[in-house]
């Protein structure tokens, strides 16, 4: 079991920078998510930890030892790919035992080890079956078994559920997380699915354009986004941005959007110029008196809640409200925002402005 420390890690492919100086720490036993859109550098980061790519510069520490230039075989890390590559000519048991046999482990010990892993994964009854006829889920379990059986220091997983359909994916995600809770092995998991990251991860690194945008627990990243990119990428529907121009003084508790005065968490830095007020859909309430006026243009029923789309003079806004409340198409009403949840952004750089809400979370 292991702690992994990433320091100023960088990777260039010719003139193209895949990962720009990234630093973060994966604690022992954590289920750690690398999240971002395709091309953001998350898979390259994972491959550097596993040793499948060598970094251009920077360091990787596994349990205090610098390993960035070592070959994969000397790192004691197991990799699970999206396309579970099983040996088609071997049965399930042989597939799982293969890494042990190639290490030269005695047969009786191998047998005990495979039985133990099969029990953890609930696949004891298919050990003698050929892998050809297995369902997608069982194939995935066998691939996991082959990774677990070695008892490596850490697991690297590259979108292992990406190829499964939605319903089954949800089920496997729960199973994988439960497996992690039983074994407690450090796991680094790459995904582009924000819900999967929130659902399974202890910590999340959000990457975009080769840069780490934010690093923290799921709830922290959701409540206190460091950038507009993170605020938009996490959450469904994503955070609303109401653009406005003006000035905020350090210590201010409100901002002015045209005719509307909106209370915000106390500001910890002064700013003047183009800004955006960021508010999550569930933190908007509809009222007759709300200062920001809006027209209802769509309502989507979701059972207990509904998503209402509203047109304001600062663009469309989505609010999540109770289904009991009626929102009539074409109706004009006011919006209120829960003051303590609001984040202000510098629209030019996308950076969140410091406030009593996010101080302590945002660095530098």
């Amino acid at each position: 079991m292991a702690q992994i420390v990433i320091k100023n890690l960088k990777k260039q492919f010719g003139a193209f920078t895949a990962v720009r100086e990234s630093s973060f720490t994966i604690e022992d036993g954590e289920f750690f998510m690398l999240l971002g859109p395709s091309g953001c550098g998350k898979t390259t980061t994972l491959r550097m930890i596993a040793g499948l790519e060598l970094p251009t510069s920077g360091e990787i520490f596994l349990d205090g030892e610098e390993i960035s230039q070592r070959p994969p075989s000397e790192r004691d890390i197991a990799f699970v790919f999206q396309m579970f590559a099983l040996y088609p000519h071997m049965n399930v048991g042989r597939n799982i035992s293969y890494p042990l046999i190639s290490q030269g482990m005695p047969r009786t010990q191998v047998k005990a080890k495979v039985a133990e892993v099969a029990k953890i994964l609930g696949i004891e009854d298919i050990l003698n079956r050929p892998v050809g006829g297995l369902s997608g889920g069982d194939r995935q379990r066998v691939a996991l078994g082959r990774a677990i059986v070695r008892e490596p220091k850490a697991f690297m997983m590259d979108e292992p559920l990406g190829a499964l359909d939605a319903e089954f994916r949800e089920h496997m995600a729960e199973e994988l997380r439960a497996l992690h809770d039983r074994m407690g092995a450090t796991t680094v998991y790459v995904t582009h699915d924000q819900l999967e990251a929130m659902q399974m991860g202890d910590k999340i690194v959000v990457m975009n354009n080769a840069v780490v945008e934010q690093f923290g627990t799921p709830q922290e990243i959701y409540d206190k986004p460091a950038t507009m990119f993170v605020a938009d990428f996490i959450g469904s529907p994503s955070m609303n941005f109401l653009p406005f121009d003006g000035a905020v003084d350090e210590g201010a508790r409100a901002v002015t959007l045209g005719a509307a005065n909106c209370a915000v968490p106390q500001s910890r830095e002064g700013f003047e110029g183009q800004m955006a007020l960021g508010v999550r859909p569930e933190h908007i309430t509809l009222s007759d008196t709300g200062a920001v006026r809006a027209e209802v243009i769509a309502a989507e029923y979701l059972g207990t809640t509904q998503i209402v789309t509203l047109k304001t003079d600062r663009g469309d806004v989505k609010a999540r409200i109770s289904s009991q409340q009626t929102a009539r198409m074409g109706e004009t009403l006011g919006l209120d925002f829960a003051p303590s949840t609001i984040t202000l952004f510098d629209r030019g750089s996308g950076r969140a402005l410091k406030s009593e809400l996010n101080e302590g979370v945002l660095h530098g």
Partner: protein
Amino acid sequence: MAEVSLHNISKSFGKTVAVADMTMTIPDGAFVVLLGPTGAGKTTTLRLISGLEKLDQGRIQIGGRDVAQETPAQRDVAMVFQQYSLYPHLSVRDNLAFPLRSPILKTPEDLITQKVQKIAEILQIPHKLDNKATELSGGEMQRVSIGRALVRDPAIYLMDEPLSSLDAKLRADLRVELKRIHADLGSTLLYVTHDQIEAMTMASHIGVLEEGRLVQYGTPKEIYEDPCSVYVASRLGLPRINILPAGLFPGTHKGPQIGLRPENIRQGTGAEATVIRAEHLGDHTRLHLTMQGHAITTLTDPHVDYAPNTTLQISPENPLYFDAHGARVH
């Protein structure tokens, strides 16, 4: 636009029964969604209405007329498929105009120009009309393929999972757009999907299919709040409804099985459950519990921490009851 009604229709392929004795009325101007998993008979129903498959039994009426002897072209339906098959060598304009230029319709060219322009505006792609079909993004291509159905003014639009190949963000946008287009045109629409979000957010009526049979038909609210069986109750709602032995909770029960939506579990009093794990999803937290070996999922406040193995008291709120076979008990 017209009302479409199905009377006891059936269709089998060899020994597989695809559609079994289905009766349903799609009212004029309605947005009906057929919801069910793969193999429930959704697509076959669409193909029977469009005339791409022949009925074994039953009757289909479009606008009051029996269409049994009519070809697909004569039935006056427009179909949108999951895979947008645009003509790659034609411009967006010519792709949209194509159905109107069909020899059966003989539409005058100035009327075609007018209609194509109007549909392009509804779909918000007028600036792309002169692009080649291949120079569009995935979402734009799917809008053009929907537009190609919309330029016609058929009795009914039939859509087979038109959004399923798109990414999540685009799907969310097009859901709102499709609903708006439907409201603007006042058209009759039959839409097939296995995605419960699409069904709940867009439909005026949902038909839930199970192995070729229509098991419940009603508004999204009726289906969600008043399902007729465990099967229907499990189709809508995320996370899924908890189905448990009623005896787990103290008190008298109307049936042996109790159905509790995750949001209908109150904390504080009642039976004891143990926390397995909390998932912080941002706007809410999913709490996985176990109670005498039964897994339960409930929703809770995002800012409360629940350590694994904590014990909670929970009790049902607005429970649904089902008999041993899964049928609803009132």
